[in-house]
């Protein structure tokens, strides 16, 4: 009887620890996608670039934590940043990924207002490099394909991440707004519905929605705020993509509008997001 309880208890504790922080799911989801890239379907990520992005993210986090005198070094967020950069950024030299990772993590420590960093670190680094080193970096929005199966896989992984982070709403708001704009455009042009459907199935769009715009640390605290933010990004990205023919439209729109979260949080204040969820932990370990 006692034995059974002991055996029963450790997986429960482990599960509790894993579930307590949404980043664990995010790391799992992104690592799965990266593995998928290397083993099955090439999205364009390269092992050396990925290794450099991840290693530099972790090292920069450790260095900045020390410089800023933080009590502990938490490597989960920089791991997510390194994985995101591996998946999304393309460069003509592997070292660029190291530079991107350093910029991403440093931005998180330096560019803070009201005790909150303004830009998603990976998103910031991608746009910063597109501006600073346009001859060396690019993003490949088409490489994720538009297969339903892939969309389903990403959605499934992402759902796990977001439902545990409590921020699934912003991804859905964004996808709904983005999809609605595409459908309206197709209606105006008289295009068949298969065209907006093809555009909505883009793997690149889903990855942006579930892993970038939905970053709980850089999205508005209130639900209404997140709705406004998501719709604003969808509108700007639509304009950039179709009127300006900009390929990284989603990332540029997020970069440009991220400071809006500060204003939105002042107008619609709500509790600030915190990764660890002691309540869940307590519930599961009880």
């Amino acid at each position, binding site marked *: 009887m006692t034995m059974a309880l002991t055996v029963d208890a450790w997986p429960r504790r482990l599960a509790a620890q894993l579930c307590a922080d949404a980043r664990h799911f995010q790391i799992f989801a992104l690592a799965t996608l990266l593995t998928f890239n290397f083993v099955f379907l*090439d999205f364009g990520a390269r092992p050396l670039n990925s290794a450099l992005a991840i290693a530099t993210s972790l090292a920069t986090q450790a260095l900045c934590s020390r410089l800023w005198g933080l009590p502990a070094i938490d490597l989960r967020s920089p791991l997510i940043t390194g994985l995101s950069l591996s998946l999304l950024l*393309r*460069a*003509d030299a592997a070292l660029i990924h190291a530079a991107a990772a350093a910029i991403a993590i440093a931005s998180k420590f330096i560019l803070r207002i009201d005790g909150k960093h303004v830009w998603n670190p990976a998103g910031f680094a991608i746009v910063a490099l597109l501006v600073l080193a346009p*001859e*060396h*970096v*690019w993003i*490949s*929005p*088409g*490489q*994720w*394909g*538009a*297969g339903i199966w892939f969309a389903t896989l990403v959605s499934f992984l992402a759902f796990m991440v977001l439902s545990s982070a409590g921020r699934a709403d912003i991804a859905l708001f964004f996808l709904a707004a983005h999809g609605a704009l595409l459908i309206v455009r197709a209606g*105006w*042009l*008289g*295009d*068949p519905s*298969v*065209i907006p459907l*093809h*555009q909505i199935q*883009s793997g690149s769009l889903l990855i942006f929605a579930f892993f970038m715009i939905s970053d709980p640390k850089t999205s508005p605290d209130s639900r209404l705020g997140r709705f406004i933010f998501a719709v604003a990004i969808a509108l700007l990205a639509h304009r950039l993509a179709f009127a*300006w*023919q900009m*390929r990284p439209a989603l990332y540029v729109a997020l970069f440009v509008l991220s400071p809006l979260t500060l204003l939105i949080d002042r107008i619609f204040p709500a509790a600030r997001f915190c990764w660890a969820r002691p309540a869940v932990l307590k519930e599961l370990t009880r």
Partner: protein
Amino acid sequence: MTCLRKTSARLKSTVAILAIAAQLAAAIGPAAAFCGFYVAKADAKLFNKSSKVVLSRDGTKTAITMASDYEGEPKEFAVVIPVPTFIQRKQIGVVEPATVEHLDAYTAPRLVEYHDEDPCMLQMMERREASDKLLAAPNSALKARESVAYKGVTIEATYDVGEYDVSILSAKESDGLVHWLTDNDYKIPRGAEAVLASYIKQNMRFFVAKVNLERMELGGNKFLRPLQVRYETAKFMLPLRLGTVNARGPQDLIIYALSRKGRVETANYRTVKLPTGMDVPLYVKDEFGSFYKAMFDKAVEREDMSAVFTEYAWDMAWCDPCASKPLSNKELVELGARWIGSDDDTAFGGAQGVNAYVTRLHVRYDAAHFPEDLTLMETHDRENFQGRYVLRHPWQGSTACAGGAEYRASLPARFEREARSLSNLTGWKIAEIAAHMAMTGQSIWRRGDRP
């Protein structure tokens, strides 16, 4: 692009609207001639219903050169191409077919041969070079006429360009455009109207060209030369949709993208590199055409016909092995790469700050799998890639030296790997491959092993 072809005397003309070239015309009329096998390269002529487009892009400066496999009567040919801006006469030209064919040969997937060394010397590699005639650039007369309004359609300009009569049309409604085309003896396929309407709303104009037989005779041209249009636009795309309206089955399009920075890929479809570098049985040398077609079919099937394939991506300044002799500065400029600075007859060799990079993309498309036009983007990826398949000739001389027996014993396993590789690439049955190999002295069975 619209391609028109009269099919009978009773029906004045049948119009097939095509996005990129005369594919539909080929489908309606006699099938495009299958142009035989190419021992060392698999050029665009292997694929029936295929079109070739050279797309040069420098910032927003774009030149699009369209060559089709149209082999019908010249008087029956016409094209309609959506273009993003008004086009002046100086922005239109014709290009010698040989120049496009040269770029096709230069970038074609290739078969290379190695000869095993005496198991105790260096192998040889055979390179095949195809010589292409380099012909002078065409010259055509300018004759812009007054713009006239026609049922909501404005003929913004008409030009004489080589053997073509070109009109630039703009329209407010697709009805007007369809009426104009119908009234001008064009029969519009059902479904084309909606696509035209979409382009009209996107502020696109229509570049319409027909063949002028008199000037064709005067110019002494036996074949229709590729048309080139140059314009500045942020829209880096290729219109496919018109070509899929009423098309019978999938079509092949080969895009040769000339760019300054690096590889070109599609932003709204996956761009996938074709399998490359495999050792294949020696008999493939005589069947390279069917090998390449089968391999391409298989690759298309594997990607559920939803991807664009990269066949070649390389700096234009060099090649290894070269499938044909390098293009000259003149040819590159003729194809729209005007940024290279020089237009002399010497081979393009690149220079400080002057780059030209070529990407050869091959797409098999239909309306179901490619509902949207191709959106393109230039990357900074300058990694070289070529579709390259390898023949390894075993050593034929004496193997009396120490390693000889071991070398001979290793051959069946090697041949088997080649057979499996060929089977994986093409879907051909391994038993058939083995039988074919046995006839060319490449038995995959050791003595006594044969079933």
